[in-house]
């Protein structure tokens, strides 16, 4: 399904991700173009939530570990959907 090489690359990137997504992001207080627009127009994010994994955090885990576990959960779901598509919808000519 996913080649071993791809999978290992994904795992390495997964373990690197919190250095960027959590550590450096906090360090530099970075913002996106969309943040600038929100500030200028006074837009506020609506306060309702449907998932315990909001913002790639995992309940009970520190941000750093939560980010990795969240990433692993996301990868697992995407790969599972891939398997599902393969079993349900594949056309082999």
């Amino acid at each position, binding site marked *: 399904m*996913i080649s071993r090489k791809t999978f290992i690359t994904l795992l390495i990137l997964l373990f690197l991700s919190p250095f960027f997504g959590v550590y*450096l992001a906090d360090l530099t207080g*970075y*913002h996106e173009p969309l943040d600038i*627009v929100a500030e200028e127009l006074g*837009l506020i994010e609506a306060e309702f939530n449907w998932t315990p994994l909001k913002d790639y955090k995992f309940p009970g885990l520190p941000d750093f570990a939560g980010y990795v576990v969240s990433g692993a959960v996301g990868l697992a779901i995407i790969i599972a959907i*891939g398997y599902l598509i393969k079993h349900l*919808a*594949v056309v082999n000519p």
Partner: protein
Amino acid sequence: MHIVHIPDGFLSLPVALLSLLISAAFLVLSVIKVRSKKLLTSEKVSILTSLSAGVFIAQMIAWPIPGGTSLHLVGGALAGIIMGPWLGIISMSLVLLVQCLIFHDGGITALGANILCMGVVAVLVGYATYRVLTRLVPNFVAGITAGWLSLTLAGTACGIILGVSWGSALPIYVMSVWHAILGVVEGVITGSVISYLHRVGSILRWE
């Protein structure tokens, strides 16, 4: 929290609904095309899954610029170039759906708008630009240009959606200018991955 995808509360109701309708129409069209062209072979599903997983992880890696914004990949151009427009749209929509439903990354009311910008506009622009340019210039240059234009126009589309929501031209200006700058990184990553794939002999399968 940094805002990469459009959250809830940023769009007016008519705009949210309209963008949902348009992106749903593109998704249905993609599924129809994939079925009629029999694109969904076992091999393509493997590429689709690998690419979706790769885009998901790549989007978690953002390199912040002090005091400014961040450098990261959206991946729409890459998805369109590697898999063609229809599977590309499906791949990006899958990533955006998981991000929204599981991680609250992008609002549930803004899912249509997020898919429209990053799943439809980014993919189609990247794919079309690459297809036109690859006959004229080296793969790397075609990939850079496709990635840059893809992100710039995806950001602009997002700016238009926000601008129409609130009757302001400011989001269009801010989003297009910023994404034209950030698009350079998207372009370099897209160009590098595409020229690497060509070098190792992976063929890009459009049809």
